[in-house]
């Protein structure tokens, strides 16, 4: 408006944007995904509360699949190397990603993690990459990392209503793992209810009931991983 009169006020313009606010994260996630596809690696993003049994399930999984497949793990945590050390003891390659306070992983951190893993692999390719997200059922569900499969975990001590309380985690996942099934006798956890709630949020969700203590359901979990791997390029 005031280009000519010299009053100092500039011209006003409206710029149409119409773009997703997480676009930057999504673009890096797509890069990660292309990279993973080029090395023939299936990536699995595990989301669950602190203590829901994510690391223990990974330990059981590596015991079962570690000789057949080369497995890598990116361990998301706010601080400490403890979980990465647990994974390395099982013979898989692990990189700890400490977020320094953030309650979720973002795709740029995964990008760095992939480079660091490659540094430790000397040119060998991974068959399966697990990403253990920061313990939290809310924030991680917003951020695509480039994973092929998103898995949400709830332990039986957390209660069957979790799908209703954290719908986004359940809507964006394709597998629901109920963990610590050996503890059911000590809780009022109702598998049928939990499954129904989960399906009401996401009708295509596949549910598996596991115990890393007794080994129940681990066969089914491992089969699902092998099938998912066959489906990806």
């Amino acid at each position, binding site marked *: 408006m005031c280009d000519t009169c010299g009053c100092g006020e500039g*011209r*006003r313009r*409206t710029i149409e944007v119409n*773009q997703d606010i997480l676009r930057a994260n999504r673009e890096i996630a797509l890069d990660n995904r292309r990279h993973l596809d080029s090395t023939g690696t299936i990536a699995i993003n595990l989301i669950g509360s602190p203590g829901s049994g994510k690391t223990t399930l990974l330990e059981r999984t590596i015991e079962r699949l570690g000789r057949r497949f080369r497995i890598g793990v990116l361990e998301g945590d706010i601080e400490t190397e403890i979980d990465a050390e647990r994974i390395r003891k099982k013979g898989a390659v692990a990189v700890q990603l400490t977020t320094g306070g953030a309650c979720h992983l973002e795709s740029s951190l995964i990008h760095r993690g992939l480079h660091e893993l490659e540094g430790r692999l000397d040119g060998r390719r991974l068959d399966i990459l697990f990403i253990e997200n920061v313990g939290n059922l809310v924030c991680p569900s917003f*951020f695509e990392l480039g994973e092929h499969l998103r898995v949400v975990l709830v332990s039986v001590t957390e209660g069957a209503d979790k799908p209703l309380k954290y719908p986004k985690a359940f809507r964006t996942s394709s597998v629901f793992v109920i963990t610590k099934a050996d503890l059911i006798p000590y809780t009022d956890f109702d598998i049928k209810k939990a499954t129904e709630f989960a399906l009401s949020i996401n009708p295509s969700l596949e549910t598996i009931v596991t115990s890393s203590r007794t080994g129940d359901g681990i066969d089914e979990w491992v089969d699902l991983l092998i099938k998912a791997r066959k489906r990806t390029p």
Partner: protein
Amino acid sequence: MHELSIATGIVDEIVRIAEENRAKRVLAANLRIGRGAGIVIDSLRFALEVVKTAHPVLTSTEMRIDEVPLIYRCNDCGREFEADDLYLPRCPMCGSYNLRLVSGEEMDIKDIEIEV
């Protein structure tokens, strides 16, 4: 508190667009956030005010948030209806849980108003 990360993402994007268009300052940013996006609007507002202070071009920016209602369409009877939240929505006509989300998950920057 994903609102802080999300606010950082929004602000970085606005600054990028402002620079691309050689803006002297950004007067306003219009955002569209769905009721079912899982974002606490008050937390987001607060986070935006904190994050924008790092960028001189945003000193006087008004951050406007348009909340998009949560609307479902029933796959059984075809009716569309508005829901208050994401938890176990049910068709008010036929009681079905078989629903499709029509709107309410948006998280968009709609436009920005700049002074050049």
